[in-house]
């Protein structure tokens, strides 16, 4: 089956979520990917949304982080402070699944402002739960469309810590989790270099060239020596994803998984 770049991005991201993991899910692309994982190889994943649902199994994708569908299908719904205190800070989250507006070469994230903080060119929505997801989750997956405007040499504002200025910077700051382990885009998959922690392209999606990735990255992006090709989505993955999006469109009159929190 043929597929879009959005579809392979979602499928590739979903595949990174291990079965049995406790996953703190951001709204939008992360929610689509996490639910695709749950409906394919990871039926035993526990999806947590910051509004309170634990173990959500939505049949259609939520429009917002606090949809009734999440509450109705969850194992339990707790107050928001418990999600952040007992679950995220409590060290019970295996995978934090985040989107972002801007990202730099060390996978630090900006969702606060474009331009100076006090006189911003664009005021973005803000931190939400991302800073503490980025620091406390055992590992972090980032899913974001790749453009030179979003993959920047220098962030206007560091909202959430990735690997900071690289190397063992996280360990020196005593951040509990190991930080971003993969960035999945519509063009490729990047992983931090084991030593420098600089994001390195490890896999290109089928039909995507190095030049396209370089053009869509605001720094001189590195490619792994053993650069692979992202395995194409299987028919099953595509069928499940499309069915999910179709159910969502029918329910909401929209594809769901849009922007916002």
């Amino acid at each position, binding site marked *: 089956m043929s597929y879009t770049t959005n579809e392979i991005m979602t499928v590739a991201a979903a595949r990174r979520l291990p079965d049995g993991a406790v996953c703190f899910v951001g709204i939008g692309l992360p929610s689509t990917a996490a639910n695709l994982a749950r409906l394919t190889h990871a039926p035993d994943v526990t999806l947590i949304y910051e509004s309170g649902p634990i173990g959500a199994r939505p049949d259609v994708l939520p*429009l917002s982080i606090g949809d009734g569908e999440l509450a109705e299908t969850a194992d339990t719904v707790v107050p*928001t402070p418990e999600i952040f205190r007992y679950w995220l800070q409590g060290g019970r989250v295996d995978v934090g699944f985040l989107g972002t507006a801007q990202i730099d070469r060390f996978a630090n994230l900006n969702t606060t402002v474009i331009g100076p903080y006090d006189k911003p060119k664009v005021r973005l929505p803000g931190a*939400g739960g991302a800073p503490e997801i980025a620091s406390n989750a055992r590992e972090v997956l980032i899913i974001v469309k790749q453009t030179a405007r979003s993959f920047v040499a220098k962030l206007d504002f560091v909202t959430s810590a990735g690997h900071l200025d690289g190397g063992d910077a996280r360990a020196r700051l005593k951040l509990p989790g190991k930080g971003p382990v993969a960035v999945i885009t519509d063009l490729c998959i990047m992983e931090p270099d084991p030593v420098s922690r600089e994001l390195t392209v490890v896999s290109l999606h089928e039909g995507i060239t190095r030049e396209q990735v370089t053009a869509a990255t605001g720094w001189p992006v590195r490619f792994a020596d053993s650069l692979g090709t992202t395995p194409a989505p299987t028919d099953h993955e595509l069928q499940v994803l499309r069915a999910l999006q179709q159910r969502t469109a029918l329910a*909401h009159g929209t594809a769901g998984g849009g922007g916002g929190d």
Partner: protein
Amino acid sequence: MTEFVTLREAVAGLIHDGDCVAMEGFTHLIPSAAGHEVIRQGRKDLYLVRMTPDLIYDQLIGSGCVSRLRFSWGGNPGVGSLHRLRDAVERGWPGPLALEEHGHADMANAYVAGAANLPFSVLRGYQGSDLPRYNTNIRFIRCPFTDEELAVSPAIRPDVTVIHAQKADRRGNVLLWGILGVQKEAAMAAKRVIVTVEEIVDSLDAPPNACILPRVVVNAVCLQPGGAFPSYAHGYYARDNRYYIAWDEIARDRETFKAWMQKHVHNTADFNEFRRVLAETAGAAA
């Protein structure tokens, strides 16, 4: 002890210019009717607090009611930006808006600390983030037992918290269920509490350990069916997503926004009339 009053009376009696006000709701049970009433009554210089300011805060900001905002994520959930919030921050219209920006974890903790009458909250957070550079209210302390460094933040103690809930009983106890967000903590943290409800019943018939605000913490209960529109009230009605999408267009332009507010809020007597006018507009557009 709870008084049963109209929303107009509750806002007139309990919310004053300059107050610190939290109208909480985490995409569920947003107190939209109460927000409109604050705009109608022309409150000024409010210090608003909310984890997720959305449409109703956009309307309050655009209407010039707000001078200061403590928050952690401001957007149109599932749609995009809040254009009135952006206009205030990016261009100071209709007036300057001071931001006190935190993360969700911090805000949730700060409500809990406020409810517990503590002056500050403690969390593992902000390591590596630029937020503490721009918000001097985010500080760091050391654990007196382990010497670990932890972030601290001032507790949230609103003058008034406003929430929407599904039910109140005739004694003034309030029941909410589904996605709870931080509403209970925001209410317990406040000096005064206003609750709008879908219905008032003889008995809550609540299951064991349900989320109930006992009447002694509730100052005013206002019957306002549909009061969370366009958000949803679990068990009563679903989110009206068309309104969220439409708001993106309305709020983009100052004049469009002002005209809409005039027609739908200032020229209507209450939320019920607002709903009628809105339905007519939608009917005419169809």
